[in-house]
């Protein structure tokens, strides 16, 4: 398989590009922020995503989805990133769908996801930095489990129809085994979500689980063997976050290069200054390399290749590095106007920071690769 988009994928990209730029450009996000909206995204837009078929990209045709892959999901995510469109797409249509695929939960949740009616949230983080360890407890109780603990950085956690939670059914925090993944419906007693607005104006919740009772059928996959669906979720989520971040970086770069082609100082276009040209060309190179890393990870995921996991870490780390450069150079090359709230470039900086933290930052993934290589 060549490492570029095929004709169908290119067509999907063009469709997604037009659709997202039209339905949810940066001004859409600005409006949500300015109106102090309390959902964090537009339900109406989520429905439109469904009408376009996007919400079912990774859902099999037997469940009414398109049965496509991570490359296609990434194509949509890149456009979401480019337009900074607030959307539950990454968490719901990508990460949650991958976790639930092939389990009985698919019957229950996929129709709503495909229809653009259902939103999922991922309650994984127990501290301010993503870690692989899981401390939150799930004790056997009746014919089910009782969940106790707290999670944070849960996007859409306060409005989601169900929350995917990682908890420990055996062993100690750092153990691989003994983790179980649960799908908890939003009305579960004892679960309280408090949403906080983040730097990028998105909303993420801290969730308290105070002896939340769930049935045995809330378990995703098998008890004590939740790493399996969790790893599936994380691989998909990371590749997706990398794709969205790529869009953020590309959007910031395009905006910046457009700006230096128009802005005049000293009687000339600032884009003709070699000091800026060289930095722009360097940025372009970093973004190209990041783009390749993302596509490689997605293709390996779609092929079910066992090199996919490492490739996903490369993609998440590389996009973290490249897009950080993109947003920083973005502000710098815009000069003073780049610091104003009125101008959009600052939003890219904020969004990049949030996506960089999601599912492990660049350092986390570089470290993961180093450990796998034995140093």
């Amino acid at each position, binding site marked *: 398989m060549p490492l570029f988009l095929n004709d169908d994928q290119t067509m999907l990209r063009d469709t997604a590009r037009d659709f997202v730029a039209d339905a949810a450009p940066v001004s859409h996000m600005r409006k949500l922020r300015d109106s102090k909206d309390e959902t964090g995204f537009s339900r109406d837009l989520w429905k439109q995503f469904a009408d376009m078929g996007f919400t079912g990209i990774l859902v099999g045709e037997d469940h009414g989805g398109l049965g496509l892959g991570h490359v296609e999901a990434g194509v949509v995510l890149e456009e979401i990133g480019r337009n900074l469109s607030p959307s539950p797409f990454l968490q719901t249509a990508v990460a949650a769908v991958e976790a639930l695929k092939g389990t009985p939960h698919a019957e229950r949740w996929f129709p709503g996801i495909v229809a653009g009616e259902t939103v999922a949230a991922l309650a994984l983080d127990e501290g301010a930095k993503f870690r692989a360890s899981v401390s939150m407890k799930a004790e056997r109780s009746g014919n089910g489990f009782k969940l106790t603990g707290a999670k944070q950085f849960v996007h859409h956690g306060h409005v989601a129809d169900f929350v995917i939670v990682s908890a420990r059914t055996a062993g100690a925090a750092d153990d691989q085994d003994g983790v179980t993944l649960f799908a908890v419906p939003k009305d579960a007693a004892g679960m309280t979500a408090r949403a906080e607005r983040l730097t990028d104006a998105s909303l993420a919740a801290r969730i308290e689980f105070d002896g939340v009772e769930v049935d045995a059928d809330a378990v995703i996959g098998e008890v004590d063997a939740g790493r399996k669906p969790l790893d599936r979720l994380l691989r998909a989520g990371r590749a997706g976050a990398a794709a969205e971040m790529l869009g953020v970086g590309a959007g910031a770069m395009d905006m910046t290069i457009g700006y230096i082609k128009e802005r005049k100082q000293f009687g000339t*276009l600032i*884009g003709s200054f*070699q000091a*800026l040209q*060289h930095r722009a060309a360097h940025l372009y*190179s970093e973004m190209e*390399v990041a783009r390749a890393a993302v596509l490689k990870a997605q293709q390996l995921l779609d092929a079910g290749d066992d090199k996919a996991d490492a490739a996903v870490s490369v993609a998440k780390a590389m996009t973290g590095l490249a897009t950080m450069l993109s947003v920083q150079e973005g502000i710098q090359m815009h000069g003073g106007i780049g610091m104003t709230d009125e101008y959009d470039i600052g939003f890219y900086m904020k969004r990049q920071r949030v996506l960089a933290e999601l599912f492990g930052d660049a350092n986390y993934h570089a470290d993961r690769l180093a450990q796998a*290589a*034995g*140093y």
Partner: protein
Amino acid sequence: MSDLETFRSETRAWLEANCPPEMREPIRSEKDSVWGGRDQSAMTPAQKQWMDAMGAKGWTVPDWPKEYGGGGLSAAEAKVLREEMARIRARNPLSSFGISMLGPALLKYGTEEQKKEHLPKIARGEIRWCQGYSEPNAGSDLASLATSAEDKGDHFLVNGQKVWTSYANYADWIFCLVRTDKTNKHNGISFVLFDMQTPGVSTKPILLISGYSPFCETFFDNVKVPKENLVGELNKGWDVAKYLLGHEREMISNMGLGGGGKNPLIDGAIATIGLDHDGRLADPLLRAKIAEFEVRSKAFAAQSERFIDELKAGRAHPAQPSMMKYYGTELNKSRHELIMASGGSDNLEWESERSRGGAPARDWLRTKANSIEGGTSEVQLNIISKRILELPGA
């Protein structure tokens, strides 16, 4: 089985039978590269066997047409061959300016006679080529070159001096830029080929900071070059030169890839520095730098694959080799900085046996030229900003 799968299993079997074990060891220093040429006395038996076997199959140049000594493989088959070679860590059988630079230019601009004459010899490693572009006063500003070629009816008379001509002292033939019209900077340059044994050609090696002397000053004193050795049109050599430079940059960018398999940098660091009780390199800052380097180099490997795929499909931007050259060479320089930092004083030994004659240090010094040869990093960035990003001129 699909045709491609059949091809893969046949290729695998053929490589298994024909690639000597010594040629499956990673390249450990510049000296392990095989350059072919008329004088093959310096080659080891394994090197020669491997080059000849691959050359006879046309697999030194898998995607060139068979009639010119190539393998005639499709892009997909060539990719399979690369993958199968990487699988057994087979060394590149032949390093050659003929393959990576002149060949593509001849395929595009050469006459039928020129292709038939030169390409098969390049493919089989029989003739070693060097590149006569740079002059003392024409480096980054290559088009200001002055070496002259006077029209003498059936031949050109070439006079002048080239510099930085890599391996000119070992080369059999040279592809050379000469001035055929003094009144027109870019449209007064022609592209000619000639034998380095032609009377009037002389070379003088230049010693590098690495202690190696891979390149020369090259002098031309009334050198007679037959007219049929002109490639492309008279005074239109700049087009050929630029096309060739694209391929040169593409080749140089591969340096960013390092070898396949596990990064020897990591083993080196573990050997000298050791692991702490958590199994991590005991120098946490160096570990972090190596890890970030690994991210970039793995991502760059993906980019190289993407670039080749795009190139083969005719989708790459024509200036994209500049990006590859820039990134790959800067990456390779940082790899060798890390190798030196990991090896510590072991890697500083200049002539000892254990350092294989100072290979780590010499290779490290050699890489500093990566961002100069084939057009400097600054020049690549100029090209990216003007031609890809379309930023305004000064």
